[in-house]
Structures are given as C-alpha cells and as structure tokens.
C-alpha cells in the first residue's frame, strides 16, 4: 500500500463522515467565557507564588507484583479500535499476530504462551474453555476505562493465570449530568470503517452507560476481512444505604477471515454474550462485601473454505457456557487489609466437527477460595496470599504467593515477588494443567528529577507445558528469565518520552534454547500534547522473535494525531488520524501470519 493510495483512501472518507460531522456541529453551543482566575489568585491577589512544575512523571506503585496500568486518557490517544490496539504499546506485551483490527490475535506477556494469560472484562473471564484462548480482538476499545496488567503468575488471586492477567475495567456512568454521549466514526485503508455511539448519564441514583459499535474492514492482510458488532450496557444503582448494584452486558457478533493458506481460506464466526450482576456493599468503614453472578455464552465456528471455489472443506464449532459467581469480603483494619473470597463456576463446552466425529461435550464445576493480606511494617509492605482451587478436571491446585516492597524514599521502592501458579490450557484434554514458579525482583523510582524508572528481573520456571513441536504431544519444562526496563519523562515543551525494553532468555529442560519466544522487545513512545489540545503520539514496536521463518525488519512505527475543539463546558469535537506501520516494516513470528502493512485512517469524535 503506497502513501498515495492511503491518502486517496483517506480522501474517500469525507462522504461517510459528513453525517457525523453535521450531527456534531448541530449540538455545539456558543462557548462559555471561562473564568481563569483561580481561587488562590482570588484570595491572595494575582501574581502570587508560581505553581511548581511536574517533578516526576508518576508516583511509584506500591505493590509487590509487576503491574502496568493503561488509563482512559492513554487509550484515547492511541485511536484504538479494539483491546489489542491498546496493549500493543505496553512494555512486555507481545502480539503474535498484528492483523486487521477486530480479527483474531494472540498475545503474550513476557513471552508466556497465549493460553497462559487470563483476560477479564467486568470480572468475567474471556478465555475459551477448550483451549484457554482469550479473544481480545472482540472487545471494543471505546467501552474501556482502564486496563490493569499483572505480569507473571497471578494464581494466588485469580486462579488459572500462569503468565499474567489483563483486567479490563469498563467505563462507569457519567455522574454529574443526566445525559451525555459520544459519536465517533473513522474511515481508513481497505474500507476500514468504525462507527460508535455512546450514551451515558445519571438520573437520581441510577446511572447508565450504553454503547453500540460496528467495525468493518475488507482486510489489511489476505483473507483478513472483518465485520464486528458490539452492544454494551451498564446500569449502576446506588442503594439508599451505602452500596452499589451494577448490571453489565456485552453482546458480540463477528464474521472474519483468519488466514489464507494455499488453496484455502480459514474464516471464523462468533456470537458471544457476557453478563454480570454485582453488588458492592460496605457494611461499615472497615468491612465491605462484593458479590457477583456472571455468565459467558459463546459460540465460535471456524471454517476452512476452498479458494477459489468457496466450498466448505471443514468446520468446527465450539459452544462455551459458563455460569458462576463470587463472594469477596475485604476488611481494612488498623494495620492491614485482608481480602478473602470464594469463586464458583459451572462450565460446559461442546465441540463439533474438525477431526472429532460427532459432538464431544464436557462439563465441570470449578471452585476456588483465596485469602490475600497486605500489611505494612515501617518501610516494608508485605503481601502473603494463597488460593486453593478445585478445577474440576485439572486436579486441585494450591497457589501461594509472597510479595514484599521496601520504600527507599517517598517515591522509590524495591519490590520482590514470588508465586506459584497454573493455567488450565484445555477442558477437553486430560492433564492439561501447566504450572509455573515466578520470581521477580524490581526497582521503581520517581526521585530522579523529571524521570520515572522501573526495572524488573524475572524468572518464570514453567513445567508440564504441552508441546507438539516434534509432531507429538509432549510435556516440557521451560525456563524463561530476563529483565525489563521502563522509563518515562515529564513533558518538556509539551513532549514526553517513554520507552520499554524486555529481554528474555529461554532454556528447555535439557538446557537447550527453544524458539518462538521473543528475545528482544522494544517499545518506544513520543507524545506531544499542548494546551490547545493538539496531540500527536509516535509509537515504535520492535520484536526479535528468535524463530525460524520470523521477520524483524525494522521497528514498526505508528503515528496518531488528534485535535480537539471545545465548544462548551460539555461539548467538544475531535478530529483524529492515524498512520500505522509508516515505513511498511515486517515483523512476525511466522510467515503464515505476516503483519499488516502501512495503512491510514481518519476520523471524528464528538462529545456532547
């Protein structure tokens, strides 16, 4: 795709966006004259003491685990379509497949396998039951308020989470007005069109957040087209006594192309419903209860179709049904926080087609109890935790963890964390529980003026990892150890820099290195944001996959630009554009899944 054709595609975007622009402009009102005299100036007179500039990019995180948080502000700056577009920029995360937005992709955390990562949305696990695959690409970015990523085993809190957790927290209803919303539309290369509508507000005690979106693309790689539709709703009711009831529902439907192989295309089709009802009940200032029921109903079909010809050669269909609930009590004492809880899920998976004759179905009851404690002694914060799981088919699992932090100063600390964890990588395969012992040692500081630094050494010793590299299933031991370094700066001339580097050294049980684990991962970010609300962000991504058939020709550079025009207190109009993979670099783990080439899009967002 040349720049010229990209520009032409962008030019063609004008027509479908006229309606959105017109709707936006209809809602604008005369700007209200803004009062720029602060209360400080009012009481002290103008020309008082100057306000200090930012001394540090961010405060040091006080947890023992290696956690990265992506906030709503960062999500908007990335012009993201779905969840993988957001975590693409996070240090230590590797996308195995860089594909058309909305289509299937695999992610790794610090070189973990894709089925070692637990992905939650509104506390409902997204991972499929048959192979623990989390379909991140079906989650629209717009509904996300923040993402919390735990790197390394997190089984003492979450159960099956060998490689880490991606916890997606959705937006809460806007509280200060009865109605507001956003209209957004974008158009890009290969008819990549994304239209989204949000409505949110609070009336009396009832808050609502509603979202509808549709993403279409003719495909940025061969046979990688997509039609993704999402509906999302959240209702939140504040109880007359203290407490909140929250209902959430996400419905997803998708048809997409996954892959083109010689003489055949592989496509998928999916329908999924995720719903939860949660009660948060503070009993007093110290004790609070969280109770939730949840369900995930998913049907996913994969088709192999002859090309040309369009004859279905093979199809497989997986139905996942899970229903369950959780109960959690948190007690905040004088000296410590104790969290205890229980999770229960009844799961059922049925598979039809493929190499299996007829239908194979399996059900299981899963339960887990956990106890997490945090207490502080002087400059030390100590976090012992444990969880016991009855997995139903993967044996009973005890997952302890122990974390400790030492505050070197108000904004610097040392952290250590060790944990045992596991992942249930298949409901249908016997003895498919893979295990890990994670150890991490880290340092984080915001004390160097204008800089924030974070460094982590990690060692993930996994065993019983199911491998079919040699054409037969085998259980192997894999040791992945390495280091991760992150740096951010405060804005200078409205521009800040961020960078993250991850090095992973791998060894098998026999001392040999094994392939397809990213040896070097580099993330670069340069962000410009000025008071007139013009912002630009340049993202660089480099992965050395250390695999035969992989390619790592250059850094993939993405540029995102946006300009916001304020019209009134609550009304603004934003024009944005993205140019992805600017220099058409190649970066993939296998040539079966080449990454997308250069592509561009423009769009508008109207907040009212």
């Amino acid at each position, binding site marked *: 795709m040349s720049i010229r054709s990209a520009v032409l595609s962008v030019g063609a975007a004008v027509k479908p966006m006229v309606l959105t622009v017109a709707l936006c402009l209809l809602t604008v009102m005369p700007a209200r004259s803004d009062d720029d005299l602060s209360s400080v100036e009012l009481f002290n007179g103008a020309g008082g003491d100057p306000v200090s500039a930012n001394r*540090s990019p961010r405060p040091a995180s006080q947890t023992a685990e290696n956690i990265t948080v992506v906030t709503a502000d960062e999500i908007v700056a990335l012009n993201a379509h779905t969840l993988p577009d957001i975590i693409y920029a996070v240090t230590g995360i590797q996308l195995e497949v860089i594909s058309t937005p909305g289509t299937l992709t695999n992610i790794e955390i610090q070189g973990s396998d894709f089925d070692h990562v637990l992905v939650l949305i509104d506390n409902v696990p997204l991972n499929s039951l048959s192979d623990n695959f989390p379909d991140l690409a079906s989650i629209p970015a717009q509904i996300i308020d923040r993402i919390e990523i735990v790197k390394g085993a997190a089984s003492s809190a979450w159960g099956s989470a060998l490689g880490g957790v991606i916890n997606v927290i959705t937006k809460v209803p806007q509280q200060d007005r009865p109605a507001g919303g956003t209209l957004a539309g974008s158009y890009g290369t290969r008819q990549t069109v994304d239209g989204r509508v949000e409505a949110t507000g609070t009336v009396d005690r009832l808050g609502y957040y509603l979202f509808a979106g549709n993403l279409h693309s003719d495909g940025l790689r061969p046979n990688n087209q997509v039609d993704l539709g999402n509906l999302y709703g959240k209702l939140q009711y504040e109880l007359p006594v203290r407490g909140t009831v929250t209902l959430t529902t996400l419905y997803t439907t998708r048809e997409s192309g996954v892959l083109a192989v010689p003489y055949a295309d592989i496509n998928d089709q999916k329908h999924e419903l995720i719903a939860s009802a949660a009660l948060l009940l503070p009993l007093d200032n110290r004790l609070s209860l969280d109770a939730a029921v949840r369900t995930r109903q998913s049907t996913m079909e994969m088709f192999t179709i002859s090309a040309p010809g369009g004859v279905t050669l093979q199809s497989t269909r997986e139905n996942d049904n899970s229903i369950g609930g959780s109960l959690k009590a948190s007690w905040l004492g004088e*000296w410590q926080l104790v969290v205890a809880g229980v999770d229960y899920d009844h799961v059922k998976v049925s598979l039809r087609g493929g190499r299996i004759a007829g239908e194979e179905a399996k059900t299981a009851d899963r339960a887990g109890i956990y106890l997490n404690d945090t207490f502080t002694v002087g400059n030390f914060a100590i976090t012992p935790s444990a969880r016991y799981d009855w997995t139903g088919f993967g044996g009973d699992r005890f997952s*302890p963890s122990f974390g400790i932090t030492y505050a070197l100063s108000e904004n610097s600390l040392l952290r250590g964390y060790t944990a045992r964890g596991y992942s249930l990588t298949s409901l249908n395969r016997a003895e498919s529980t893979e295990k890990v012992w994670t150890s991490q040692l880290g340092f984080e500081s915001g004390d160097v003026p204008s800089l924030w630094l974070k460094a982590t050494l990690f060692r993930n010793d996994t065993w019983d990892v199911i491998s079919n590299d040699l054409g037969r299933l085998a259980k192997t031991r894999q040791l992945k150890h390495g280091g991760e370094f992150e740096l951010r700066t405060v804005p200078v001339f409205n521009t800040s820099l961020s960078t993250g580097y991850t090095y992973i050294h791998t060894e098998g049980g026999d001392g040999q290195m094994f392939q397809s684990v990213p040896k070097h991962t580099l993330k670069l970010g340069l962000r410009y944001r000025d008071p007139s609300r013009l912002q630009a962000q340049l993202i660089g991504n480099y992965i050395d996959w250390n695999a035969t058939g992989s390619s790592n020709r250059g850094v993939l550079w993405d540029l995102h630009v946006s300009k916001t025009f304020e019209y009134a207190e609550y009304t603004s109009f934003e024009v944005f554009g993205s140019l992805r993979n600017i220099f058409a670099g190649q970066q993939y783990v296998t040539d079966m899944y080449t990454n997308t080439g250069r592509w561009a899009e423009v769009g508008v967002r109207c907040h009212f």
Partner: protein
Amino acid sequence: MSLLRLLVLVFFTLIPTLALAYDVLLLQSMHDKGYDEAVRGFKRDYRGSVRRIVLTDYADFDLTRITREEHPKLIVAVGDRALEVAQKQHATPVVYMMALNAKPRRPASGVSMLLDPARYLSVLEELGCERVGVLYDPARSGAYVKRALALAGRSRIRLVLREVHAPKETPAMIASLKGKVDALWMLPDTTAVSPGSTEAYFLFSQAERVPVVTFAEVYLSMGGAVALIIDRYDIGRQLAELAQNVLDGNQQDEGGEPPRRAVTRTNEGVVRQLRLNSLAGR
C-alpha cells in the same frame, strides 16, 4: 497437607502486627501558601497517619491505583482539582477544604471557603449601612446569595443584587448601583471579582463614598474598608475534626460547613475617610 498450609497462612495473616500504614491520603491540588497553612492546621489536630501528595508534582497521576494499592481510609482533598480527582474514584470516602470553584460529582462533606453570610451582615450593620450592593454569578454564588437574602430579611439590611455572567460585565453592573447603595459587599466569586474588574469596586467606593466589605486582606490595600478573612489554619483544624468523625463511622452532613473562625481586618484610613462606625475591639 494443602489445607494445613492454608490454615498456617490464615493464622499468619491474622496475627496483629505493628504497622505504619497510613489512614488519610491528603491530596493537594498544588503548592500554595494558603493550602499549606490549611494542611498544617489539619495535621495539628488530626493525630492519625497521613500521606500527602501534591498533584502538580506528577505529570501522570493515577488515584485509582493508589487507593487500590495503599487502601487509605479517607481522602482529604485540598483544592478544587484535588476534589475533582478524588471524586473520580469510588472506593474511599472524600472530605474537602479550600475548594471554592469545584463542582462536586457527588455530595461530599467538607469545610467551605465561604464564611457564614450572617457574619458579613453583622459587620455591615455595625458600619451603619442599610443598602448593600452585591454582585454575583448565579452559577457560582446563587445558593450563597439566597441564604444571605434570607438572613438580611431578618435585619435592617437590604441587599441590592446585580447578576454578572462574565467578568467583563462587572464594571457596568457596579456603575448601575450609583446612588442606590451605602456599601458594596464583595463576594469570593471569580466571575464578579477578577483582575480586570477589581479596580471598579474601589473607584466606585471613592466616588460614591461607600465602603467595600471584602473577603481577603489583599483588597484592603486597594481601598477596601473591612475584610472578613477566613482562617486557613483553623479550616484545617475544623476539617481534622470532621475527618475523625468520618473515620469513626459517624454520618456527616453533605455539603460544605462554613469556616467556624473569621478574622476581621480594617483599613483605618478608609474607615476614617468615610467616617464609618469603628469596628475596633472585634
């Protein structure tokens, strides 16, 4: 064996420990002498542990993460932006002080920067004024003025009100009070009082020979007659009491309490020039 390990862990976690975790996260909008004074007052009377974070020290501040990781029992917001940021999270109760312009997302308890209007009316009565001009922005000070009107109805003072919706309207509105008032009452309202309009109050005062009763000492040197000033240190102490009540589990009234202490300062030169009743001895 696993259950045994679990029991050991339960025992371990419930052992009382000597710890220094903090109870109150004090979130301050920025570095400012007035805010610092209020914080000193708070720390004087609040005996629990406090961590103070000044928002302007950080380019990227994530309160949700801090509350989740450090579990403060209460957030004390100092300043408008601090209150706005504090109310974006739901996990921890919030009390506030020194927040004049904030529009709380949810009702919250705190100590306001607005003295009880009765105090001003009392000063105006002692000065011997009957017709008092007040400029205000209904969006900012509407509720305060309503309370002042109700109180004025019980005294011999009559408030002559002028609404302003933008700072530039202020001089004309002051001019419209010519011959109709015996005094001007300057409210801490950033629409009615701004760098461009402050002079108009004192030019009117000189021309009409009426005193200006104001809320900050800085306006005395410009020609104000009397200032009824908030005591920031005491506001901090007042909030410390309120915070302790919240931590003790007592239900608090929503909205800002008026500061309980005020300091009166006069510009004796102006008082003499305008031949006003003296406020000496207050």
